[in-house]
């Protein structure tokens, strides 16, 4: 049960409130589902709704998202068209009105589709901790989590050049369904050969997975079905069973979805 809800009016005040053992509340679309569960834990939360952390700034190719920016805000912003497919694959309109960008970084798999995209874009975070504001790579935070009492205030990334960002999510239904396999990639192809590549997988491990093995296979190679098939075998994946798919099924269809993500077929 929610035993307290604070509504600070700044990030600093929110951070101060967290020091007493409360947790940040973004849109609540994960936390409140746990609260509404009969067996849900007692929780003290600090809502970020009025903490001045909502907004999208695009300066040249640097994109900065306030932590409490909603998925609906992203969907509405024509400057972020390359993220639209990802955002619209997440839940449904009445959930996206509430769900926040930072919240998506901390939900358990198979959720975290936006986090997969942001990880492929090598996003960095502004984190408010006891020593003040610092920058952290999202990759580090996805791997190790964030210490209690710390607050993400902003997410920053470089907008991908046109045509270099791929997002593909396999799900049971076309809309409003959790991921079976999610593939997010930033990838350049020059003279038929893969140049720079960052590849992130969802649904295939308890945490989002940077597919470093696949990246090594792809880098410098032609983007062909054979190469992509080899790339699909190059990482240790640890898929899991859930209501959407079995671990076996996830492993079985991963190569298909990597191919669809990278080759479109």
């Amino acid at each position: 049960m929610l035993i307290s809800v604070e509504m600070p009016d700044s990030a600093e005040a929110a951070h101060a409130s967290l020091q007493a053992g409360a947790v940040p509340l973004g849109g609540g679309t994960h936390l409140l589902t746990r609260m509404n569960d009969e067996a849900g834990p007692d929780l003290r939360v600090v809502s970020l709704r009025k903490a001045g952390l909502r907004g999208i700034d695009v300066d040249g190719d640097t994109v900065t998202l306030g932590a409490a920016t909603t998925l609906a805000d992203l969907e509405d912003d024509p400057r972020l068209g390359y993220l639209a497919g990802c955002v619209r694959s997440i839940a449904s309109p009445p959930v996206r009105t509430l769900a926040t960008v930072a919240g998506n970084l901390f939900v358990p798999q198979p959720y975290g589709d936006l986090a997969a995209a942001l990880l492929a874009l090598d996003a960095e975070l502004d984190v408010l901790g006891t020593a003040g504001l610092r920058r952290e790579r999202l990759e580090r935070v996805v791997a190790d989590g964030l210490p209690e009492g710390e607050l993400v205030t902003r997410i920053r990334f470089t907008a991908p050049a046109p045509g270099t960002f791929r997002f593909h999510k396999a799900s049971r239904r076309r809309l409003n369904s959790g991921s079976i396999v999610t593939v997010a990639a930033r990838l350049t192809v020059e003279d038929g050969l893969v140049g720079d590549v960052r590849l992130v997988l969802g649904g295939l491990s308890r945490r989002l997975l940077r597919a470093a093995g696949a990246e090594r296979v792809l880098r410098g190679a032609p983007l062909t079905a054979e190469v992509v098939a080899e790339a699909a075998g190059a990482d240790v994946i640890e898929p899991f069973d859930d209501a959407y798919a079995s671990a076996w099924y996830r492993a079985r269809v991963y190569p298909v979805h990597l191919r669809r993500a990278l080759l479109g077929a």
Partner: protein
Amino acid sequence: MPSTIVTLKLNGTERELIARPSTTLLSALRDTFGLTGAKRGCAQGGCGSCTVLLDGRPAVSCLIPVVTVDGCAVETVEGLADGDRLDDVQQAFVDHFATQCGFCTPGMIMSATALLNREPAPTRQDVTEAICGNVCRCTGYEPIVTAVLSAAESRRDGAAEGRHDSAAERRHDGAGERHRDAAAPLSGKAAG
């Protein structure tokens, strides 16, 4: 934490309630204000039967601690009809048999209303995307999609003819039906 006073602009009228931290917007609507249109289906964000408009956007009210939306505008299905005159989305649901047991209907209508407020000429695909968070176990969805497309059309007809609610006026002999959004500025489609 003690209870706090929360103010909502509820269906256009300012209302106050005393809320505990754990009170959701859904329970405030149902238990405090007696507005039982929004339903508690799953309380997990998954069925959409609790959908209301929050500052004009569709939102699952079961996942919102009401203290966090102090000062916000909330519209529920009860705010759509004018007395016993249904608004055009509601009427289209009746006309097209888009409601059977009715449990999903208020949430479905609020999702549809949110869509039509933003997109007066939706495609079938727009409608299915707009209602993808609203589960219906009875109708098979087809009549719902047809009803929403038909409501959009009757709104556009009404706007083109300078009237406010063509369906209601046909039924009520042109009694100056209100239609709050027919002339509202349009925000266009979401980026695709």
